[in-house]
């Protein structure tokens, strides 16, 4: 075998074909923008979307890759990562669709926005498959730094600046803490950075070593909990959601969060397999705190974006149930829920963007009486919010019930009960918005809605939002009822993932061992 062939087989570079497509798209977007300037703007975003969709198709063809490990073990392109990478790419594609009118309205450069967004996507996609500490760190930072830039994209707007600064400082600090944890992990394992092999070398010793491992665990949880905005690492969320441009929030709430959950699964299941009980405990606490605090504080919000920020904290709590369950059903319910969350949350944000474009505000009280003026927007926002609240037959109901089912099956009765109760609370604040829009009589209409411009879809940039919104609404309404194929894919991705398989089997053996013990 010649040398280059050997290298190629070691690198197995074809595994990152989807990412390569995104990179090429990104470079082309930048170059085209340089050459043609503003003239290229009208079709540039569609080019980016095409690139992302091509990447999704490439992911689809990478399904059931017989040799998922690539780049000497830094990146694993197994089915689990494919599902998450697909979610991230899809969320970006839809976000671009929603952002065209918004960005043009503010007079900033669309091409640069798309470029940074694609970089963030790239980071997120790489993070989903990263299986080596350096790789995790680099892709995490790629996602984070691009997110800071996106958050501060409206550079003339002090609110956007402030959100970006807060996000950057808290984010950088949390990634430094994460890094400290990974350096400890590197040391404790005696110089291994690949998380698949790290467990074998981590001695399950007593005293200092287990203390070190516990510290590493806590530090790394802090880093990841920041990304998925779990309480108490959530303080940035409401500020960033309120201050930054709405399309960015849409991406952060879905794409960035999905990547965070992907790495959470991979990291904790593999590297921290010897302290399974500990990380289960930590995530149980995080889940309860997130569900309670997120959903309760959301009750008091007056700004739509802030309310959705707290709601997204609560939703992250629900998803963590799947992680804590640590079973086949648990993981596939997580994937299923995140996939559904993509559509319903982006749908809600699409409506908010649309409303903000027409009126320039996002206060909840300004939505009063919207039903009279814009039934489509009202219907869309109502469907998405009710779906987030878990009202059947919308997608969110099935997602939630699957997570609860999985959690209950894993014996997490307390956690599921907390989730059930907090989801009733969440119904209350979601339906408050629906009530505001639908129930108010014409004379109770807010001044903003009274001056609501006539609904026109033929203005520049409106068509894509309309297309995106309709697509998201259809997905939100039907994805739950027709969820069988999606769940089959999620299940398959979990069961075929070597990483999870080993962990699940170990757990089953463990359980049967303890059962035997109790019998004896």
């Amino acid at each position, binding site marked *: 075998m010649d040398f280059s062939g050997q290298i190629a087989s070691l690198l197995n570079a074809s595994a990152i074909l989807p990412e390569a497509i995104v990179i090429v798209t990104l470079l082309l977007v930048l170059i085209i923008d340089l050459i043609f300037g503003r003239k290229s703007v009208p079709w540039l975003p569609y080019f980016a979307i095409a690139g992302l969709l091509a990447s999704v198709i490439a992911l689809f063809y990478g399904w059931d890759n017989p040799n998922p490990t690539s780049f000497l073990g830094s990146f694993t392109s197994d089915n689990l990562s494919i599902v998450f990478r697909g979610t991230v790419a899809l969320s970006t594609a839809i976000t671009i669709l929603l952002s065209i009118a918004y960005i043009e309205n503010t007079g900033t450069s669309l091409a640069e926005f798309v470029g940074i967004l694609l970089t963030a996507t790239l980071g997120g996609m790489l993070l989903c498959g990263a299986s080596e500490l350096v790789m995790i760190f680099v892709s995490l930072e790629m996602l984070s730094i691009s997110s800071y830039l996106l958050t501060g994209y409206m550079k003339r707007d002090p609110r956007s600046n402030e959100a970006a600064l807060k996000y950057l400082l808290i984010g*950088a600090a949390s990634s430094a803490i994460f890094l400290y944890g990974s350096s400890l992990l590197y040391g404790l394992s005696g110089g291994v950075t690949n998380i698949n092999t790290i467990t074998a070398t981590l001695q399950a010793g007593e005293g200092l070593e287990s203390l070190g491992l516990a510290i590493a665990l806590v530090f790394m949880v802090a880093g990841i909990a920041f990304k998925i905005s779990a309480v108490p690492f959530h303080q940035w969320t409401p500020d960033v959601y309120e201050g930054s441009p709405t399309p960015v929030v849409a991406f952060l709430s879905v794409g960035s969060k999905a990547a965070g959950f992907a790495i959470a699964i991979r990291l904790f299941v593999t590297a921290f397999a010897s302290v399974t009980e500990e990380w289960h405990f930590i995530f149980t606490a995080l889940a309860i705190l997130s569900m309670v605090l997120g959903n309760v504080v959301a009750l008091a919000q007056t700004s739509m974006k802030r309310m959705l920020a707290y709601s997204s904290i609560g939703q992250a709590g629900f998803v963590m149930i799947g992680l804590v369950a640590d079973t086949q059903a648990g993981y596939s319910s997580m994937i299923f829920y995140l996939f559904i969350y993509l559509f319903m949350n982006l749908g809600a944000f699409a409506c908010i963007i649309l409303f903000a474009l027409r009126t320039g505000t996002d206060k909840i009280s300004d939505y009063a009486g919207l039903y009279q003026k814009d039934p489509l927007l009202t219907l869309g926002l109502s469907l998405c919010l009710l779906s987030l609240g878990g009202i059947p037959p919308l997608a969110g109901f099935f997602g939630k019930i699957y997570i609860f089912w999985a959690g209950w099956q894993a014996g997490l009765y307390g956690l599921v009960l907390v989730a059930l109760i907090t989801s009733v609370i969440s119904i209350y604040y979601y339906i408050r918005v629906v009530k505001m829009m639908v129930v108010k009589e014409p004379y109770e209409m807010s001044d903003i809605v009274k001056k609501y411009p006539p609904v026109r879809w033929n203005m520049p940039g409106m068509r894509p939002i309309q297309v995106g919104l309709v697509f998201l609404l259809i997905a939100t309404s039907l994805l739950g009822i027709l969820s069988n194929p999606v769940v089959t894919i999620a299940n398959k991705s979990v069961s075929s993932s070597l990483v999870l398989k080993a962990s699940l089997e170990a757990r089953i053996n463990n359980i049967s061992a303890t059962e035997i013990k109790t019998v004896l």
Partner: protein
Amino acid sequence: MDIQLEYFLILAAALFCIGIFGLVTSRNAVRVLMSIELLLNAVNLNLMGFSNYLDPGEIKGQVFAVFVITIAAAEAAVGLAIILAIYRNRDTIDMERFNLLKW
């Protein structure tokens, strides 16, 4: 005489704590950014120490440290850019006065 690995770790931990302290107490945004650099340097020390003592063959820790330094630079660049933007808009970089967003 040998310098034990523990000394490096303790130094790194001390540096890390100083960084955290600076992070919590600083009012000036640039100082907060500097504190974060301290945190990252503590991590670098850790990595170098581990790499020398435990992994002298593959020195993955040193490679890791190079990546960390690079990314820290990128982060600082973005951070300073954002601070610059906020200074233009608000004429201040005092953390306590960034209070447009709160609940």
